[in-house]
């Protein structure tokens, strides 16, 4: 077979997106709950950004009121277990497993077993106990199992279009997620930074942001410990060699889509999605680092978030519905 069944391609793509979304969410909750132990920040300053990054500001405000974001336990419970929000870890991992089950025959046994074990564990008493008694271990377990899955995807699957679609999903989600995290935290932290002169507090804020993107050590290697807001932002947006930077994720996503749908193959569906991803990649490659300081950063990140969302819509229309009108 040359192509991939359109329905399967869509499941692959969403499997990748949900895996990345769950891992990113577990990482954010892990880092923030650690930071909460010894930070000088007000709890609301810590937890509200987490709610906003997850895209749940509206629903959270409606159900609890935004002032309740000061209740770290409530926020964690909501973003971990809540059955009524699609973004809680429980629900996201459910969506991961649902998509994986629909393509049981496409993914490798290793990938399936890891995902299924994680799903079974999330429903177990052991998971509840770990959550209650050892919060850090709870989030770390989820994060590690998902990292394992991404490794197993690359290491145990045939490198065909199914894998390309899964990794395309991972990468586009990564680009969007890093952009959103950076935007929200950079804004919140810039405000806070203005209120404090204490260099230790200032440093800690940026460390937390880097950790939330698994980027602390890579950043230190590049910048030799010079922690400034603009440098952190520039790193997360434009670093060529860091896998979670927006530029890196978009560059690889573009490469994957080129393999799925070669630029010269005019007869194949997917041309518009490819053109738009190509444009975003070129724009990021050419972006002048000096232009992303201050207000320019927010504008650039908004552009990334909007473009990735639009590319995902085009993929749905052109590739996942392919043949549907026949």
């Amino acid at each position: 077979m040359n192509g991939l069944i359109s329905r399967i391609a869509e499941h692959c793509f969403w499997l990748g997106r949900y895996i990345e979304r769950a891992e990113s969410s577990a990482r954010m909750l892990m880092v923030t709950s650690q930071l909460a132990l010894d930070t000088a920040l007000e709890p609301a300053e810590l937890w509200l950004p987490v709610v906003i990054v997850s895209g749940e500001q509206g629903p959270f405000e409606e159900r609890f009121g935004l002032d309740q974001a000061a209740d770290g336990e409530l926020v964690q419970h909501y973003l971990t277990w809540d059955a009524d929000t699609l973004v809680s870890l429980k629900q996201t991992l459910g969506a991961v497993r649902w998509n994986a089950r629909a393509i049981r025959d496409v993914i490798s046994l290793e990938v399936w077993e890891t995902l299924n074990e994680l799903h079974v564990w999330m429903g177990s008493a052991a998971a509840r106990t770990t959550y209650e008694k050892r919060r850090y271990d709870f989030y770390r377990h989820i994060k590690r199992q998902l990292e394992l899955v991404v490794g197993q995807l690359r290491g145990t699957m045939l490198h065909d279009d199914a894998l390309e679609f899964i990794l395309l999903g991972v990468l586009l989600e990564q680009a969007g997620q890093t952009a959103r995290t950076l935007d929200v935290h950079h804004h919140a932290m810039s405000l806070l930074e203005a209120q404090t002169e204490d260099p230790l507090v200032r440093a800690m804020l940026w460390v937390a942001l880097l950790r939330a993107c698994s980027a602390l050590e890579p950043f230190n290697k590049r910048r030799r410990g010079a922690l400034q807001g603009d440098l952190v932002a520039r790193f997360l947006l434009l670093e060529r060699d860091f896998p979670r930077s927006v530029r890196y994720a978009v560059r690889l996503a573009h490469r994957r889509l080129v393999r799925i749908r070669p630029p010269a193959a005019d007869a194949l569906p997917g041309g518009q999605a490819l053109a738009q991803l190509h444009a975003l990649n070129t724009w990021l490659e050419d972006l002048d680092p000096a232009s992303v300081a201050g207000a320019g950063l927010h504008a650039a990140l908004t552009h990334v978030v909007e473009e990735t969302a639009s590319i995902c819509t085009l993929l749905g229309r052109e590739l996942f519905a392919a043949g549907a009108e026949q």
Partner: protein
Amino acid sequence: MSDLFRDYTPLPDTWDEMFAERAQPRAPFADPLEVVRAHTPDEYEARQALAEQLLLEAGVTFSVYGDAQGTEKIFPVDLIPRIIAAADWDRVERGLVQRVTALDHFLDDIYADQRILAEGVIPRELVLGASQYLKEVRGVKPVGGRRVHIGGIDLIRDGDGRFLVLEDNVRTPSGVSYVLQNRLLVKRVLPEAFKRAHVRQVDQYPSRLAATLRSVAPVAADDAMVVVLTPGMYNSAYFEHSFLARTMGVPLVEPGDLFVDDDKVWLKTTRGPERVHVVYRRIDEAFLDPTVFRPDSLLGVSGIMRAWAAGNVTLCNAPGNGVADDKAIYPFVPDMIRFYLGEEPILDQVPTWTCARPDERQFVLEHLDELVVKAVDEAGGYGMLMGPQSTAAQREAFAERIKATPRRYIAQRRVELSTCPTWIGDERRLEPRRVDLRPFVLSGADGVWVLPGGLTRVALPRGSYVVNSSQGGGSKDTWALRGATEEGR
């Protein structure tokens, strides 16, 4: 020393698969069972728990119908194997090849010249009046020459240890994935006993199945595009559908992934349409093609029956097979074997009364408390009356149903199904539980092949005769032993 078998006692008048008498395993099975015997109840329970955990983690589950939550359960596995001696298996194997061959001839005949009806071997109205007889199929000769590509023939063993055919499944028999999965499990959890037994392999099934499907394609086998067609992930057998697709390395598709153009079947892909040659359909034929069967149905692939009739795609199994596993036709299978093959049946079957015949119906109505009554077109343990365990009210209700539509019912004596030692967690010991056996038979252009062993299903509740997973059944690994001449193969 610990003895797990010390109190194990077979039931009276019942064949026990593994034990000749109290605490005494049958001679050919004694050696591998020594390993099991030495367990303490705690040790054994730990192995059983490990097995269940492995199944859950591997996601070997079936969906429970009527459960809006999409609940999935594991199909319970009992670790004590069901062992079949080499000589017994050889005979079963020959009997199955013979039976499936005859059923294939029968289907070819009734959808063409109807010789067997013309010669009065089987009553014409019984065949043509069967709800599963598809008049649309008459005159269609499937590409590849076979109709029963995958057969599942249910066997039981009576009090004397005789294998009897209980029913034929030649539409979409399921359960083979559990055979392969149970084997993996037992090799992991009871490796010592397994190694000592010299068991015939089962893991070649997916490649045999793939070869069978390719062999009946309308194009050269090497060029054939084969797919497995599933109703979707909420179907109770979805695990098996995906398992077979994965282990054969062919795409698993849903009806919406296919379309028909120019009487050919195409797959919708990210690079446009691709031609499909063989469809292993695990979807009931009533939902296969809305233009033929159910115009109101949104499921199915419009036009796929025309594509099949035109010889452009092979459907496995062939549409129309249901008439051969109709329980009212079953009593005539020995006659089919004589008629088409000129041989005596190797496997016996259960004596059956057909309610369509007035004198037999009268006997059934007078002996409801002794008989098992079954609807001819139902499966899975539904639509049946277990006479000896029924109440007067149930019998009365059933008598009314029989009188209203006699063609729909047959009756059989209850056979004392054989038993096999089974771990009862609540009692923390082994007790006899009733079992059946579903071997799987593949028929392609190159001949007929039987998977050694098959699926042993076990009725877990005490006193139960119903082995279906929907009604408290579990399964066991089935060990068909190698013969003396096959050592080391």
